């Protein structure tokens, strides 16, 4: 399916020439108003992060084998990435998207990966279906977390987005939008599968990935809710569930958002592991500068008999819109690890003491083109 959907999308990219002659009927007078048949866009981040904890690594997510702290004083691997997207409008109802992302990954390389590769067909203006590789809208900003330019924070709170184990799937989904005089409601149902390689080079197979994603937008208000479950072959029983609730308020001069997520998984030894996480973020826009603060927490809910993965973070930062399509961000994270826990730190050196406090500073620039 992986290679298949990539091939499908590659094939789709070759079709615009054929589609051009067909499209003439659809858009007679207003071809100047039609989107380009083929568009190439990109996004990226160049970042440096430094952690005060030398006995373990601070990382962006659990697919990064190393980060800043133990492995590097200053690490450019935590946040840097480059993405390219090809969008093909085959006719007024059919479009194809191929997005390739190069970032630091499980094997320590920047080998590009296919992030999106799908065909989208609009059955009516309000109802569309997609097939191919689709990033999951599990959390409020999960499908845009790699596009730094679209977000205020340097990176999504690691406590919350760490629980997003499956980020995309080779799937089919249907999206229905209902709009009324002052709101838009979008609901998506998805079904698919995905194999992900973890940092121990183990292929983890997820099948029967099923999700319902709901987004309500009314002026400055966005509400988001999602439920997702999957069969996963490294768990016993092979079941993983996720749910999330989020709200954001952005009238322009200031902004605030909050999200709560819960993940229920089993380990290979039939132990149920329940974790919850949340964050609160708020800030103001002062011309080209947007200072913000974030509070986030990851807490173990179930008793596992093992060292709990728990921490909370106080973060403060500023986004500076330097010029068109370029920003610079500075963020300081003060992480407090739970007692006897290394929290979300990875690659812990033998003899490192659990618990305590970690400071991380990050300087990065995001761009789109």
């Amino acid at each position: 399916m992986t290679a298949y959907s990539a091939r499908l999308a590659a094939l789709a990219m070759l079709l615009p020439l054929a589609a051009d002659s067909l499209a003439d009927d659809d858009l007679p007078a207003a071809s100047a108003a039609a989107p380009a048949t083929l568009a190439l866009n990109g996004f990226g981040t160049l970042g440096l992060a430094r952690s005060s904890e030398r006995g373990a690594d601070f990382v962006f997510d659990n697919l990064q084998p190393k980060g800043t702290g133990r492995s590097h004083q200053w690490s450019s691997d935590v946040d840097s990435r480059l993405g390219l997207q090809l969008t093909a409008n085959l006719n007024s109802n059919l479009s194809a998207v191929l997005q390739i992302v190069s970032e630091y990954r499980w094997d320590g390389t920047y080998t590009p990966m296919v992030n999106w590769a799908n065909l989208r067909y609009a059955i009516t203006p309000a109802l569309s279906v997609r097939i191919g590789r689709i990033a999951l809208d599990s959390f409020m900003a999960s499908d845009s977390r790699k596009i730094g330019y679209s977000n205020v924070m340097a990176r999504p709170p690691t406590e919350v987005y760490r629980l997003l184990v499956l980020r995309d799937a080779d799937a089919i989904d249907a999206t229905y939008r209902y709009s009324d005089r002052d709101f838009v409601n979008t609901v998506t149902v998805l079904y698919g599968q995905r194999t992900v390689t973890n940092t121990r080079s183990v292929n983890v197979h997820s099948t029967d990935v099923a999700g319902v994603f709901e987004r309500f937008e009314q002026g400055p208000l966005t509400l988001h809710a999602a439920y997702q479950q999957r069969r996963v072959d490294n768990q016993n029983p092979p079941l993983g569930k996720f749910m999330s609730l989020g709200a954001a308020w952005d009238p322009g001069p200031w902004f605030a958002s909050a999200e709560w997520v819960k993940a229920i998984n089993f380990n290979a030894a039939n132990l149920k592991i329940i974790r919850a996480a949340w964050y609160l973020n708020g800030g103001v826009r002062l011309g080209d500068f947007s200072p913000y603060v974030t509070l986030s927490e990851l807490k173990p809910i179930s008793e596992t008999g093992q060292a709990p993965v728990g921490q909370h973070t106080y973060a403060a930062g500023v986004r500076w819109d330097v010029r068109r399509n370029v920003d610079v961000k500075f963020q300081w994270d003060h992480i407090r690890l739970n007692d006897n826990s290394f929290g979300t730190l990875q690659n812990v050196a033998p003899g490192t003491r659990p618990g305590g406090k970690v400071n991380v500073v990050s300087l990065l620039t995001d761009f789109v083109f």
Partner: protein
Amino acid sequence: MKALPTLLASLILPLLLALPAQAEIIVIVSAKNPVRTLSNEQAVDLFLGKSNNFPNGSKAVPLDQAEGAGIRDSFYRKTTGKGPAQMNAHWARMLFTGRAQPPVAVSDSEAVKKLVAADASLIGYIDRDALDSSVRAVLSLH
């Protein structure tokens, strides 16, 4: 201390004079389009890519004005409270998550009006001065 009011006036007056004239912006559809009126939210949702049909269910395609044009910044500032950088961030999110593609931008109000007049699926916004009977005003922004 006597100089203070003078100083303040000399600082504030140029600012006031520099403010752009608050021209009225009109959201338009083709005269062939049966849609009579849109709420602020309905129009904004179309221009932000959150919705892509008129209230009667027919397909709606927004047309933008040129990037950097005063009327464009002012349109989004009035309807969403957001400036050009936030709008670019919005479109980065919509585009790279496959939700929507940014509207095609054309050079000025005259160009918008000409295209909208000829196609019932289009919606645009123009300066009130450019309004004529070839298009229908569905929302007025002061």
